[in-house]
């Protein structure tokens, strides 16, 4: 603790902090709460507690675990997020080694290039990738009558679109950890007779693993919740956020959306917890 302010100040400070967290929690609580409202509309008045919006299997109160479309959205989200996190952790790890270990000209410039995707508005990322992909596909179709289906909106483009900025996040996380790595540890292993591959496998990667796992989880969650970039790239396999948005904007919301929200909140909180646990490793020697 730096220095103790006087108690009156500290009390009001604490109150402010409390109010802030109330502010943070409010919309989530509101969104989660109505998942249990026994009504067809996610709004007051409170009609009584029910779990129908999770488990009921008949219309009109079709619970989320019986709603095929939501489940399909969940499934696509899951597939997309898995690919995105695997891919972005892989490239992020390569980037970490590239930027921490290698010397090459214009490194600073490339580093800025690496950080850039994080600050490009997601909408623009989605659009630009969509435009490029469609133009190439159209060009290929007209000129060569080639059908490059993977360049059409669909899972692949969604994965690429999310990957394009999530990789920056994973890179930053992994770079931070690799920077803390004491290179003499590798030299020590080398000195003890290990081959290069063995050093990588037994020393460096195990050391990086917590960061890679945490980066993977972050990537997974960010991918799962992404809307702006996905919106433009989605084809017929809509992930959950898009499904929910379509449901809300085009069909009308029922508390089943709250149920999904609640489910996601709990899931995300658990995942976030896991990521914190894996990252909390023993202090360095």
């Amino acid at each position, binding site marked *: 603790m730096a220095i103790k302010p006087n108690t009156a100040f500290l009390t009001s400070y604490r109150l402010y902090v409390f109010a802030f967290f109330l502010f943070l929690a409010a919309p989530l609580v509101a969104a989660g709460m109505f998942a249990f409202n026994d009504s067809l509309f996610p709004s007051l008045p409170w009609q009584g507690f029910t779990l129908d919006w999770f488990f009921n299997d008949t*219309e009109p109160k079709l619970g989320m675990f019986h709603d095929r479309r939501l489940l399909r959205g969940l499934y696509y989200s899951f597939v997309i997020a898995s690919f995105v996190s695997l891919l972005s952790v892989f490239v992020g790890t390569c980037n970490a080694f590239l930027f921490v270990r290698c010397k090459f000209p214009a490194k600073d410039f490339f580093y800025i290039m690496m950080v850039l995707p994080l600050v490009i508005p997601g909408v623009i990322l989605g659009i630009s990738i969509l435009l490029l992909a*469609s133009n190439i596909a*159209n060009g290929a179709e007209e000129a060569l009558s080639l059908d490059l289906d993977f360049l*059409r909106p*669909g899972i692949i483009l969604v994965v690429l679109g999310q990957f394009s900025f999530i990789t920056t996040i994973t890179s930053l996380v992994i770079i931070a950890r690799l920077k803390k790595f004491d290179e003499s540890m590798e030299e020590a292993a080398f000195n003890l007779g290990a081959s290069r591959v063995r050093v990588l496998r037994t020393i460096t990667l195990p050391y990086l693993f917590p960061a890679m796992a945490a980066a993977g989880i972050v990537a997974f969650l960010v991918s799962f919740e992404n809307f702006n970039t996905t919106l433009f790239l989605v084809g*017929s396999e*809509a992930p959950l956020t898009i499904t929910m948005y*379509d449901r809300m904007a085009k*069909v*009308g919301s029922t508390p089943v959306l709250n149920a999904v929200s609640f489910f996601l909140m709990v899931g995300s909180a658990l995942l976030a917890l896991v990521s914190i646990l894996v990252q909390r490793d023993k202090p360095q020697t």
Partner: protein
Amino acid sequence: AVPAQAETLRLLTWGSYAPEELVKKFEAANPDITVEVTFSNNEEMIAKLRATGGAGFDLAQPSHDRIFAVQQEYNLYKPLDLSKIDTSVMEPKLLEGVKANTTIDGEVYAVPHQWGTSGLMANKSLAPDVKAWGDLCDPKYAGKTSMRLKRTILLGMAFDMGEDPFAAYADLDKYQTILDKVADKLIDCKSNIKAYWKGRDDLSAMMLSGEIVASETWDSTAYTLYGENPDIVFVPPKTGALAWIDTFALPRKGEADDAAYKWINFVLEPENVKIMSASTGSSASVKGAKDMLPDDKKAAVSAAFTDEDIANLKFFANIPAGVEDMEGKTLEKIKAATGSE
């Protein structure tokens, strides 16, 4: 869990045009077909198909006025094989109308499915006098009306101001002057409305809670709300409700045409029409459709429409290229205008 030789029918359609009940029934009847549904609207349907070059979906359901120009411009659809569709069950007037609207080089690109109208919705007890598009701007209901900031209201207002926008499609300069007039009116009106609704959802919420008393609406929404509160009725504006027909069209690179035809025929079967109409709230373009409406909907329709109103319907005309852009700009102008606040 999917059978080995399964085919997927990817529907690109409106929010309520693929009720789960019907999909399940269809899949039961055709065990080798799985149905995947993407909800959309006219603009997004076109945008999406344009981006995919007509791939990614096997059956789309744009409105009848949105096919001709788009097809010419972007070549998104393939011609229908009418022999595979049981057109005999369709209401001939609607079928012919759609065919006329969507024939290019002798090929027909769409057949009708559901039709409905856009008009007004009012809470009879709170806003008994809402009769025309312009009444949404009546200071009596200041802060208690709503509309969707889309082309429907532009057209409606134009009719309300005594113009015929559809006629003006032939002369886009004239159309622009109409739009300018409408824009001025709507900008003036801005202070009168509570919010622009964006989807069925917020409109229903505002209407049911009494936050607003009158709004521009799709008839189906009004019918649904009638079920909740019989005071809420659909009001065909006195210049005529605007009528649209959602169609069936095959995206150019659809891969499951047979399944698509099967679906089209399937939903036109009378017992399925009933289920569909219960979900959409609008009428199917089959003969005797009104009788196939569920009872509550029937009551709502009866409460809303007289035969006179039916005769007065204004069907959306084919949109020529470039009109979307003009309208878009007008809408942006209205949205951006803050002077009247």
